[in-house]
Protein backbone atom coordinates (compact mmCIF):
# COMPACT_ATOMS: atom_id res chain seq x y z
CA UNK A 1 0.00 0.00 0.00
CA UNK A 2 2.81 2.37 1.00
CA UNK A 3 4.82 1.40 -2.06
CA UNK A 4 1.76 2.03 -4.29
CA UNK A 5 1.33 5.48 -2.72
CA UNK A 6 4.98 6.25 -3.32
CA UNK A 7 4.62 5.27 -6.96
CA UNK A 8 1.62 7.58 -7.31
CA UNK A 9 3.64 10.35 -5.66
CA UNK A 10 6.55 9.79 -8.00
CA UNK A 11 4.31 9.75 -11.08
CA UNK A 12 2.54 12.91 -9.91
CA UNK A 13 5.92 14.57 -9.47
CA UNK A 14 7.02 13.54 -12.96
CA UNK A 15 3.72 14.73 -14.46
CA UNK A 16 4.04 18.04 -12.64
CA UNK A 17 7.62 18.39 -13.85
CA UNK A 18 6.61 17.63 -17.43
CA UNK A 19 3.75 20.14 -17.24
CA UNK A 20 6.14 22.77 -15.92
CA UNK A 21 8.56 22.00 -18.72
CA UNK A 22 5.84 22.34 -21.36
CA UNK A 23 4.47 25.52 -19.82
CA UNK A 24 7.98 26.92 -19.65
CA UNK A 25 8.62 26.08 -23.31
CA UNK A 26 5.32 27.58 -24.44
CA UNK A 27 5.92 30.77 -22.51
CA UNK A 28 9.40 31.07 -23.97
CA UNK A 29 8.14 30.54 -27.50
CA UNK A 30 5.34 33.08 -27.00
CA UNK A 31 7.71 35.72 -25.76
CA UNK A 32 10.12 35.14 -28.60
CA UNK A 33 7.37 35.72 -31.14
CA UNK A 34 6.57 39.14 -29.73
CA UNK A 35 10.20 40.09 -29.15
CA UNK A 36 10.69 42.91 -31.68
CA UNK A 37 12.08 46.37 -31.61
CA UNK A 38 8.63 47.74 -30.75
CA UNK A 39 8.68 50.10 -27.81
CA UNK A 40 5.27 48.82 -26.72
CA UNK A 41 4.10 45.23 -26.40
CA UNK A 42 0.56 43.99 -26.00
CA UNK A 43 0.54 41.65 -23.01
CA UNK A 44 -2.98 40.22 -22.58
CA UNK A 45 -5.78 39.11 -22.94
CA UNK A 46 -5.34 37.00 -26.07
CA UNK A 47 -8.90 35.71 -25.78
CA UNK A 48 -12.07 37.10 -24.18
CA UNK A 49 -15.62 35.79 -23.98
CA UNK A 50 -18.41 38.39 -23.97
CA UNK A 51 -22.19 38.43 -24.36
CA UNK A 52 -22.93 38.78 -28.09
CA UNK A 53 -24.62 42.04 -29.09
CA UNK A 54 -24.12 43.66 -25.68
CA UNK A 55 -21.48 46.21 -24.72
CA UNK A 56 -18.71 44.71 -22.59
CA UNK A 57 -15.64 46.30 -21.08
CA UNK A 58 -12.34 44.57 -21.83
CA UNK A 59 -9.12 45.57 -20.06
CA UNK A 60 -6.16 45.57 -22.44
CA UNK A 61 -2.73 45.47 -20.87
CA UNK A 62 0.40 46.89 -22.50
CA UNK A 63 4.04 47.15 -21.50
CA UNK A 64 6.47 49.90 -22.51
CA UNK A 65 10.16 49.01 -22.82
CA UNK A 66 12.42 50.10 -20.00
CA UNK A 67 13.84 53.60 -20.31
CA UNK A 68 11.19 54.75 -22.77
CA UNK A 69 7.95 56.67 -22.42
CA UNK A 70 5.06 57.25 -24.81
CA UNK A 71 2.67 60.19 -24.96
CA UNK A 72 -0.53 59.69 -22.99
CA UNK A 73 -3.91 59.90 -24.74
CA UNK A 74 -3.98 63.61 -23.85
CA UNK A 75 -0.49 65.06 -24.37
CA UNK A 76 -0.04 68.69 -23.39
CA UNK A 77 1.46 69.86 -26.69
CA UNK A 78 -0.66 70.07 -29.86
CA UNK A 79 2.21 68.63 -31.96
CA UNK A 80 2.68 65.51 -29.84
CA UNK A 81 1.03 62.30 -31.02
CA UNK A 82 -1.50 60.83 -28.55
CA UNK A 83 -1.72 57.13 -27.80
CA UNK A 84 -4.88 55.77 -29.42
CA UNK A 85 -6.57 52.39 -29.60
CA UNK A 86 -8.86 51.43 -32.49
CA UNK A 87 -10.61 48.44 -34.04
CA UNK A 88 -10.94 48.38 -37.84
CA UNK A 89 -14.46 48.13 -39.24
CA UNK A 90 -15.75 44.75 -40.39
CA UNK A 91 -13.94 42.74 -37.73
CA UNK A 92 -17.16 41.47 -36.13
CA UNK A 93 -16.39 43.62 -33.13
CA UNK A 94 -16.94 47.35 -32.85
CA UNK A 95 -15.58 49.71 -30.26
CA UNK A 96 -18.05 52.01 -28.50
CA UNK A 97 -15.50 53.87 -26.42
CA UNK A 98 -12.07 53.54 -24.87
CA UNK A 99 -11.01 54.76 -21.45
CA UNK A 100 -7.35 55.64 -21.22
CA UNK A 101 -5.35 55.98 -18.02
CA UNK A 102 -4.33 59.47 -16.95
CA UNK A 103 -0.79 60.27 -17.98
CA UNK A 104 2.07 60.66 -15.55
CA UNK A 105 3.68 64.08 -15.55
CA UNK A 106 7.30 63.85 -16.60
CA UNK A 107 9.98 66.53 -16.58
CA UNK A 108 12.89 65.83 -18.88
CA UNK A 109 16.35 66.69 -17.49
CA UNK A 110 17.06 68.74 -20.64
CA UNK A 111 13.82 70.69 -20.33
CA UNK A 112 13.14 71.30 -16.62
CA UNK A 113 10.56 74.04 -17.26
CA UNK A 114 8.05 71.84 -19.08
CA UNK A 115 5.97 68.90 -17.98
CA UNK A 116 4.80 66.29 -20.45
CA UNK A 117 2.00 63.76 -19.99
CA UNK A 118 3.26 60.22 -20.62
CA UNK A 119 2.84 56.51 -19.94
CA UNK A 120 5.76 54.44 -18.67
CA UNK A 121 6.05 50.80 -17.59
CA UNK A 122 2.69 49.06 -17.85
CA UNK A 123 -0.64 50.65 -18.69
CA UNK A 124 -4.22 49.47 -19.28
CA UNK A 125 -6.86 50.67 -21.72
CA UNK A 126 -10.49 49.82 -20.98
CA UNK A 127 -12.23 49.20 -24.30
CA UNK A 128 -16.03 49.03 -24.41
CA UNK A 129 -16.80 46.65 -27.24
CA UNK A 130 -19.79 45.00 -28.87
CA UNK A 131 -19.12 41.61 -30.48
CA UNK A 132 -21.10 39.55 -32.97
CA UNK A 133 -22.03 35.97 -32.08
CA UNK A 134 -19.26 33.46 -32.70
CA UNK A 135 -15.51 33.55 -32.83
CA UNK A 136 -14.19 36.96 -33.92
CA UNK A 137 -10.47 37.23 -34.57
CA UNK A 138 -9.79 40.93 -34.19
CA UNK A 139 -6.63 42.75 -35.17
CA UNK A 140 -7.01 45.99 -33.26
CA UNK A 141 -4.46 48.81 -33.50
CA UNK A 142 -2.48 50.79 -30.98
CA UNK A 143 -0.82 53.93 -32.26
CA UNK A 144 1.87 55.55 -30.13
CA UNK A 145 5.03 57.57 -30.32
CA UNK A 146 7.92 56.71 -28.02
CA UNK A 147 10.88 58.70 -26.73
CA UNK A 148 13.62 58.42 -24.16
CA UNK A 149 15.16 61.41 -22.40
CA UNK A 150 17.07 62.63 -25.45
CA UNK A 151 15.57 61.17 -28.64
CA UNK A 152 12.26 60.15 -30.16
CA UNK A 153 11.33 57.25 -32.41
CA UNK A 154 8.87 57.71 -35.29
CA UNK A 155 5.18 57.10 -34.53
CA UNK A 156 4.20 53.48 -34.81
CA UNK A 157 1.02 51.44 -35.09
CA UNK A 158 1.15 47.92 -33.67
CA UNK A 159 -1.35 45.11 -34.12
CA UNK A 160 -3.30 44.02 -31.02
CA UNK A 161 -4.59 40.53 -31.78
CA UNK A 162 -7.55 39.40 -29.66
CA UNK A 163 -9.88 36.43 -30.08
CA UNK A 164 -13.30 37.77 -29.05
CA UNK A 165 -15.87 35.04 -28.51
CA UNK A 166 -19.44 36.30 -28.56
CA UNK A 167 -21.87 33.97 -26.76
Amino acid at each position, binding site marked *: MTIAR*SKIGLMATLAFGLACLLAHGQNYGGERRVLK*SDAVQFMFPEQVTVVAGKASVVALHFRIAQGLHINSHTPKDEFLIPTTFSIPEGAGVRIESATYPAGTELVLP*MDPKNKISVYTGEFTILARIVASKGNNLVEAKL*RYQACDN*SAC*MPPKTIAVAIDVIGQ
Partner: protein
Amino acid sequence: MKWQRSIPLKRNTLVLTAVLFILAVFAWAGWANWEYRQQAAERLLASAAKGELVADPAGGMAQYASPLKGKPAPAFALEDLSGKKVTLASYKGKAVLINFWATWCGPCKLETPWLVELRNKYAGQGFEILGVSTEGEDLKKDDKAGRDKDRAAIGKFVEQMKVPYPMLLDGDSISQAYGGLDAMPTSFFVDRKGTVVAAQMGLTSESDIESNIKKALGE
Protein backbone atom coordinates in the same frame (compact mmCIF):
# COMPACT_ATOMS: atom_id res chain seq x y z
CA MET B 1 8.79 -4.90 11.04
CA LYS B 2 11.17 -2.01 11.71
CA TRP B 3 12.85 -2.65 8.38
CA GLN B 4 9.50 -2.68 6.54
CA ARG B 5 8.45 0.68 8.07
CA SER B 6 11.73 2.37 7.23
CA ILE B 7 11.33 1.71 3.47
CA PRO B 8 8.25 3.95 2.97
CA LEU B 9 9.86 6.60 5.14
CA LYS B 10 12.98 6.63 2.98
CA ARG B 11 10.88 6.67 -0.19
CA ASN B 12 8.81 9.59 1.10
CA THR B 13 11.99 11.51 1.82
CA LEU B 14 13.30 10.68 -1.65
CA VAL B 15 10.07 11.77 -3.34
CA LEU B 16 9.99 15.00 -1.32
CA THR B 17 13.62 15.70 -2.21
CA ALA B 18 12.91 15.03 -5.88
CA VAL B 19 9.87 17.36 -5.83
CA LEU B 20 11.85 20.13 -4.14
CA PHE B 21 14.74 19.65 -6.57
CA ILE B 22 12.46 19.83 -9.62
CA LEU B 23 10.70 22.91 -8.25
CA ALA B 24 14.05 24.55 -7.60
CA VAL B 25 15.25 23.73 -11.14
CA PHE B 26 12.12 25.20 -12.72
CA ALA B 27 12.20 28.27 -10.51
CA TRP B 28 15.79 28.83 -11.58
CA ALA B 29 14.96 28.16 -15.26
CA GLY B 30 12.04 30.60 -15.10
CA TRP B 31 14.20 33.30 -13.56
CA ALA B 32 17.04 32.68 -16.07
CA ASN B 33 14.55 32.80 -18.96
CA TRP B 34 13.03 36.06 -17.72
CA GLU B 35 16.48 37.57 -17.27
CA TYR B 36 17.53 36.45 -20.76
CA ARG B 37 14.42 37.89 -22.37
CA GLN B 38 14.84 41.21 -20.54
CA GLN B 39 18.43 41.50 -21.70
CA ALA B 40 17.60 40.46 -25.27
CA ALA B 41 14.74 43.00 -25.42
CA GLU B 42 16.96 45.77 -24.10
CA ARG B 43 19.76 44.87 -26.54
CA LEU B 44 17.38 44.79 -29.48
CA LEU B 45 15.68 48.02 -28.51
CA ALA B 46 19.00 49.76 -27.93
CA SER B 47 20.33 48.70 -31.32
CA ALA B 48 17.11 49.81 -33.05
CA ALA B 49 16.67 53.11 -31.32
CA LYS B 50 20.11 54.43 -30.53
CA GLY B 51 22.44 53.48 -33.29
CA GLU B 52 25.95 52.74 -32.18
CA LEU B 53 27.63 55.02 -29.71
CA VAL B 54 31.41 54.89 -29.56
CA ALA B 55 33.84 56.64 -27.27
CA ASP B 56 35.45 59.80 -28.59
CA PRO B 57 39.24 59.15 -28.88
CA ALA B 58 39.84 62.73 -27.71
CA GLY B 59 38.06 61.87 -24.48
CA GLY B 60 34.93 63.90 -25.23
CA MET B 61 31.33 62.81 -25.44
CA ALA B 62 30.45 59.50 -27.09
CA GLN B 63 29.74 59.89 -30.82
CA TYR B 64 27.03 58.32 -32.96
CA ALA B 65 28.95 55.95 -35.24
CA SER B 66 27.19 56.53 -38.55
CA PRO B 67 28.41 54.37 -41.44
CA LEU B 68 28.36 57.58 -43.50
CA LYS B 69 31.24 59.14 -41.56
CA GLY B 70 34.15 59.79 -43.95
CA LYS B 71 31.93 59.22 -47.00
CA PRO B 72 30.26 61.69 -49.36
CA ALA B 73 26.91 62.90 -48.04
CA PRO B 74 24.13 61.27 -50.13
CA ALA B 75 22.74 63.74 -52.67
CA PHE B 76 19.15 64.92 -52.42
CA ALA B 77 16.66 67.37 -53.86
CA LEU B 78 13.76 68.24 -51.54
CA GLU B 79 11.07 70.88 -51.52
CA ASP B 80 11.18 73.67 -48.99
CA LEU B 81 8.09 75.24 -47.39
CA SER B 82 7.57 77.52 -50.40
CA GLY B 83 7.65 74.58 -52.81
CA LYS B 84 11.13 75.38 -54.17
CA LYS B 85 13.50 72.44 -54.86
CA VAL B 86 16.64 72.60 -52.74
CA THR B 87 19.62 70.35 -53.52
CA LEU B 88 22.52 69.48 -51.29
CA ALA B 89 24.83 69.93 -54.31
CA SER B 90 23.97 73.65 -54.41
CA TYR B 91 25.76 74.04 -51.05
CA LYS B 92 29.11 72.70 -52.28
CA GLY B 93 31.93 74.81 -50.89
CA LYS B 94 29.97 75.43 -47.67
CA ALA B 95 29.97 73.48 -44.44
CA VAL B 96 26.47 72.08 -43.93
CA LEU B 97 24.60 70.64 -40.96
CA ILE B 98 21.78 68.37 -42.16
CA ASN B 99 19.35 68.21 -39.24
CA PHE B 100 16.63 65.55 -39.42
CA TRP B 101 13.78 66.44 -37.07
CA ALA B 102 10.02 66.02 -36.66
CA THR B 103 7.11 68.07 -35.34
CA TRP B 104 6.29 65.31 -32.80
CA CYS B 105 9.85 65.21 -31.45
CA GLY B 106 10.29 67.14 -28.19
CA PRO B 107 14.12 66.91 -28.05
CA CYS B 108 14.30 68.24 -31.65
CA LYS B 109 12.46 71.36 -30.57
CA LEU B 110 14.76 71.80 -27.59
CA GLU B 111 17.85 71.91 -29.77
CA THR B 112 16.33 74.27 -32.37
CA PRO B 113 17.21 77.50 -30.48
CA TRP B 114 20.83 76.25 -30.28
CA LEU B 115 20.83 75.57 -34.02
CA VAL B 116 19.41 79.02 -34.77
CA GLU B 117 22.08 80.65 -32.59
CA LEU B 118 24.94 78.60 -34.07
CA ARG B 119 23.76 79.14 -37.64
CA ASN B 120 23.74 82.92 -37.09
CA LYS B 121 27.16 82.75 -35.41
CA TYR B 122 28.92 80.78 -38.20
CA ALA B 123 26.95 81.81 -41.34
CA GLY B 124 29.61 84.39 -42.18
CA GLN B 125 32.26 81.65 -42.37
CA GLY B 126 30.36 79.70 -45.01
CA PHE B 127 28.09 77.57 -42.81
CA GLU B 128 24.45 76.62 -43.37
CA ILE B 129 21.89 74.34 -41.75
CA LEU B 130 19.33 72.36 -43.72
CA GLY B 131 16.42 71.32 -41.53
CA VAL B 132 14.79 68.16 -42.90
CA SER B 133 11.32 67.29 -41.61
CA THR B 134 10.82 63.54 -41.20
CA GLU B 135 7.36 62.52 -40.11
CA GLY B 136 7.61 58.72 -40.12
CA GLU B 137 5.64 55.82 -41.58
CA ASP B 138 2.19 57.20 -40.76
CA LEU B 139 2.27 59.98 -43.35
CA LYS B 140 1.66 58.34 -46.73
CA LYS B 141 2.71 59.83 -50.09
CA ASP B 142 -0.89 60.11 -51.30
CA ASP B 143 -2.25 61.60 -48.07
CA LYS B 144 -2.63 65.18 -49.36
CA ALA B 145 -4.64 66.39 -46.36
CA GLY B 146 -2.06 64.90 -43.97
CA ARG B 147 0.81 66.50 -45.88
CA ASP B 148 -0.90 69.90 -45.92
CA LYS B 149 -1.49 69.67 -42.17
CA ASP B 150 2.14 68.67 -41.66
CA ARG B 151 3.36 71.56 -43.82
CA ALA B 152 1.20 74.00 -41.80
CA ALA B 153 2.57 72.63 -38.50
CA ILE B 154 6.17 72.99 -39.73
CA GLY B 155 5.45 76.52 -40.98
CA LYS B 156 4.00 77.47 -37.60
CA PHE B 157 7.04 76.06 -35.79
CA VAL B 158 9.50 77.86 -38.14
CA GLU B 159 7.68 81.12 -37.48
CA GLN B 160 7.57 80.61 -33.71
CA MET B 161 11.27 79.75 -33.47
CA LYS B 162 12.37 82.34 -36.09
CA VAL B 163 14.28 79.64 -37.98
CA PRO B 164 16.55 81.40 -40.50
CA TYR B 165 17.67 78.33 -42.47
CA PRO B 166 15.82 76.32 -45.16
CA MET B 167 13.29 73.84 -43.83
CA LEU B 168 12.91 70.94 -46.23
CA LEU B 169 9.98 68.50 -46.42
CA ASP B 170 9.63 64.74 -46.97
CA GLY B 171 12.81 63.65 -45.21
CA ASP B 172 11.37 60.11 -45.22
CA SER B 173 12.24 59.86 -48.93
CA ILE B 174 15.97 60.17 -48.13
CA SER B 175 16.05 58.55 -44.69
CA GLN B 176 17.30 55.18 -46.00
CA ALA B 177 20.24 56.84 -47.76
CA TYR B 178 21.13 58.42 -44.41
CA GLY B 179 21.16 55.15 -42.51
CA GLY B 180 17.51 54.56 -41.64
CA LEU B 181 17.09 57.32 -39.03
CA ASP B 182 15.68 55.27 -36.18
CA ALA B 183 15.43 58.21 -33.83
CA MET B 184 15.25 62.00 -33.91
CA PRO B 185 17.00 64.38 -33.84
CA THR B 186 19.79 63.08 -36.06
CA SER B 187 22.35 65.45 -37.52
CA PHE B 188 25.08 65.02 -40.13
CA PHE B 189 27.94 67.50 -40.38
CA VAL B 190 29.23 67.87 -43.93
CA ASP B 191 32.50 69.64 -44.80
CA ARG B 192 33.10 72.00 -47.73
CA LYS B 193 34.00 69.06 -50.00
CA GLY B 194 30.72 67.27 -49.27
CA THR B 195 32.12 64.63 -46.91
CA VAL B 196 30.32 63.65 -43.69
CA VAL B 197 32.78 64.46 -40.89
CA ALA B 198 30.53 63.83 -37.87
CA ALA B 199 27.06 62.60 -36.95
CA GLN B 200 24.90 62.93 -33.83
CA MET B 201 21.80 61.12 -32.72
CA GLY B 202 19.64 62.44 -29.91
CA LEU B 203 19.83 65.65 -27.93
CA THR B 204 23.40 66.32 -26.80
CA SER B 205 24.52 69.88 -26.00
CA GLU B 206 25.09 73.17 -27.78
CA SER B 207 28.85 72.89 -27.25
CA ASP B 208 28.88 69.41 -28.76
CA ILE B 209 27.04 70.65 -31.86
CA GLU B 210 29.39 73.63 -32.07
CA SER B 211 32.52 71.47 -31.97
CA ASN B 212 31.15 69.40 -34.87
CA ILE B 213 30.32 72.57 -36.83
CA LYS B 214 33.95 73.67 -36.36
CA LYS B 215 35.05 70.26 -37.62
CA ALA B 216 32.90 70.71 -40.74
CA LEU B 217 34.34 74.21 -41.25
CA GLY B 218 37.84 72.74 -41.03
CA GLU B 219 38.84 74.75 -37.96
